[in-house]
């Protein structure tokens, strides 16, 4: 079983006719993901991806026609808040926002709106979700992972691919790999996904990939020590980062001493989470859990 979705879950793609949207919708479809419709305002009635997938003007119309409750969002940053609000109002249950570079104040309003609704937002700036052999949502390359019992959560995209690829080449497999997103303001934190992994029978061990800035790792550590019974290990990047400078990810900025890699590693260690000090160490660490 995957967390959040499963093999055969019907999926909408918001922004399916855009450059990124169409490229990755095809990759998802090729992987076996059950994409049932796309949404692009003004392009309702079109059929895309070799005429297989219908496009609707609104999320609500797409949901009514297909019964889908999960959406993957590739809408450009200047329109992303509008697309998220539309999905929330249409009562999408799980929304994966891949878009990078959303304005902070837009996300601050989105977060306030989410508190009053039942939609679960993953992202923005999330690479999506991959449950090897079952389903792929977003932009995680499908061929880097095989099915297994390790649940992986992270804040970044490419670093996660790197690590997932390596642990799979070392003989491990992944239950679900999910990125919460690289932005400072996110729909879901590590905590919500840890809870889902705890309940997922396929997941036996959890690998958390953190980075400098914010306090998602600290919150996760607290949660793990109180609520997670499955063996959990972590890897944190950004030890070499200069203080006060933003390292690409809007989230990855050390604002106070609290956001440093050292501090996060200490808090996690104190919470009983085993830590890898380099990427190469991760497979051995997983083996020892």
């Amino acid at each position, binding site marked *: 079983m995957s967390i959040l979705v499963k093999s055969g879950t019907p999926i909408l793609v918001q922004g399916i006719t855009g450059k*990124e949207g169409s490229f*990755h919708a095809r990759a998802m479809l090729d992987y076996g993901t059950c994409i049932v419709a796309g949404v692009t305002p003004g392009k309702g009635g079109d059929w895309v991806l070799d005429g297989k997938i219908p496009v609707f003007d609104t999320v609500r119309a797409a949901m009514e026609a297909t019964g889908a409750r999960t959406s993957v969002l590739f809408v450009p*940053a*200047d329109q992303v808040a509008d697309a998220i609000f539309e999905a929330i109002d249409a009562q999408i249950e799980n929304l994966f926002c891949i878009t*990078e*570079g*959303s*304005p*902070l*104040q*837009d*996300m*601050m*309003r989105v*977060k*306030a*709106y989410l508190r009053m609704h039942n939609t679960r937002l993953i992202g923005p700036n999330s*690479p999506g979700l991959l449950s090897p052999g079952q389903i792929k949502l977003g*932009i*995680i*390359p499908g061929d*880097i992972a095989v099915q297994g019992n390790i649940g992986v959560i*992270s*804040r*970044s*995209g*490419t*670093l*996660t*691919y*790197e690590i997932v*690829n390596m642990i799979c080449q070392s003989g491990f497999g992944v239950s679900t790999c999910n990125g919460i997103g*690289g932005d*400072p*303001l996110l729909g879901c934190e590590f905590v919500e996904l840890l809870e889902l992994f705890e309940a997922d029978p396929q997941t036996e061990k959890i690998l958390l*990939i953190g*980075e*400098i800035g*914010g*306090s998602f790792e600290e919150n996760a550590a607290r949660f793990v020590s109180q609520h997670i019974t499955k063996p959990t290990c972590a890897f944190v*990047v*950004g*030890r*070499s*980062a*200069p203080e006060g*400078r*933003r*390292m*690409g*990810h*809007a989230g*990855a900025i050390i*604002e106070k001493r609290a956001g440093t890699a050292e501090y996060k590693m200490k808090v996690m260690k104190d919470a009983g989470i085993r830590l890898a000090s*380099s*990427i*190469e160490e991760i497979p051995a660490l997983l083996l020892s859990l």
Partner: protein
Amino acid sequence: MRFFEYQAKNIFDRFNIPIPRGRIALNAVIADHIHDELKTDVVIKAQVLAGGRGKAGGVRLAKSSDQVEDLSTEILGLTIKGLPVRKILVEEAVRIRQEYFLAIVLDKDRGFPLLMASKFGGIDIENAAQAGEKIISLPVNPLIGLLEYQVRTVALAIELPKEFWEEFNRITISLWKLFCEIDADIVEINPLVISENNGLIALDAKISVDDNALFRHPELIEYYDLDVEDRIEYQAKKFGLAYIKLSGNIGCMVNGAGLAMATLDLIQDQGGKPANFLDIGGGANAEKVASGLKILLMDRRVKVVLVNIFGGITRCDEVARGLLAVQKENNVELPLIVRLAGTHAAEGMNLLQQSGFIVAGTIAEAIKNCVLISKKSKRAS
């Protein structure tokens, strides 16, 4: 994007937040001219993007023409926290009865704005907070906006005399409007003062705007100041690349901030020193890769270039094409180590076969190699 005090005050003025009369000067002669215009004592303030200007001697009171010229020259010769002073703000000196701190800050941990205030203005507010001095902070619901009762709550907490409540309300609501309208993540008045003329006035101004939102504020581009940033950082920004200068000699280009940070950590663990952080982002095309490489080559400290790509949304063949384009155009003389994995990696590596670039099979191999080269060339130079 951060603003100089004079730029932030200019924006305050647009939103009818009262500021002292004054202007910016590039030299002592203009400063004296402004002093003549104002016909009163002036304060000369160094314009740098750093706190602690007062302590560093960057804020001085001048009462005569001679003093204005002397102090202006002195301040323009200062370097504050590593930043040279290139401009000074000359403005009327305001006689202060009481100083307050007032700010609206986007709390990134909690995801909503905070209205913050203190009756201890004019000081380093973070140190004040640590010293246990009271700062009131009220969360603002971003869907409702700042409410007048919240402003009154703050006025009461900072013991603002009641005769100033109306004006305080007007200023605070204006500050909120400004915060929302220009997509700020910080707007701060420290100090907001009651002057001896019995009016509230913003003696200092600090604004920081969310870079992700700059696309909808073309009007702010005119505030963009070349002095603020390094020339290479400025070029990188123009190409839409996330670049940060570091102190070493290994030029790094990576896709994705997480992988880039991991790469820098690994270089450091191996005893090497990265010259920069450069994230080409997701889905970079050949052109963007080429501009990234050009940026790295502009940096004379760089002795070896490391390109580490794990393609997801980025296609490795596009990366290879970008690298080859630069080589064709101006022949890359530095050793360049490339490691490609993920989407279209095989195609990318094929393209690079005849290039003369060093193609590494793993991230560990690539980093070992480039640290080795960086140390050798250090000895040679």
